[in-house]
């Protein structure tokens, strides 16, 4: 199962995208049970593309809440594909794709 959930709905030519990405978003400030700080580990970049065009790119800090939520709007239509990808501070990546409703 992808770590990314996407909801994309078109209304009057504008697509409203909501995405939730499952990720711990460790700040590096939290202490574990052993009293040692848990190393930081977070999603650094999120990008979205639709039909070969980048529609949204964001760079995130550790201060974005656990399981980051992002929402944005772009000009598009029902049936367009939308693909969202992330890359984290350890270089891991994931992506998911859906069709605009």
């Amino acid at each position, binding site marked *: 199962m992808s770590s990314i959930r996407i909801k994309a709905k078109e209304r009057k030519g*504008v697509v409203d995208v909501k995405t939730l990405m499952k990720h711990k978003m460790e*700040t590096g*400030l939290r202490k574990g049970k052993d009293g040692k700080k848990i190393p930081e580990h977070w999603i*650094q*970049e999120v*990008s979205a*593309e639709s039909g*070969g*065009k*980048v*529609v*949204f*790119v*964001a*760079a*995130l*800090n*550790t*201060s*974005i*809440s*656990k399981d*980051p*939520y*992002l*929402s*944005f*709007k*772009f*000009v598009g239509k029902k049936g367009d594909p939308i*693909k969202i*990808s992330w*890359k984290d501070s350890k270089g891991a*990546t994931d*992506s998911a794709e859906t069709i605009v409703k």
Partner: protein
Amino acid sequence: MNRRSILKAAGAMAIALITLPRMAFAAYAEKAFKNKEVDSSLNELFGSNATTPSDEVKLKAPDIAENGAVVPVEVSTSLNADSIAIMIKENPNPLAIVADIPPGTEGKLKTRVRMGKTTLVTAVVNSGGKLYTASKEVKVTIGGCGG
């Protein structure tokens, strides 16, 4: 990563997508994100920290955060935005997020952020190299049953 490079990178990515199956990412602006001050972080990000408060930037954030770990924040602007950033002044590193707004994408960004204590939250909109802002103080209370 200043505004131009993030845009360039985005453009490059769009081209790369035609040939590459996986999306490439731009270089992460480590210096801006690890910065401890709002002004110097803005400098790293946009090459300037001269900001102008503007009614055309709308920032929606609660007066009192229900929980500092999950504070919904929404920025929208009627300006022609190149990018939108959110700064949380009292956090160890104020810059929370910067989003690129390519043509065809609305000047709007919604997310959820963490804040350790009561702080000023500032939405920064970069439009044509000028920085416009809207700010709001969000109270973070600790204690009771839910904090």
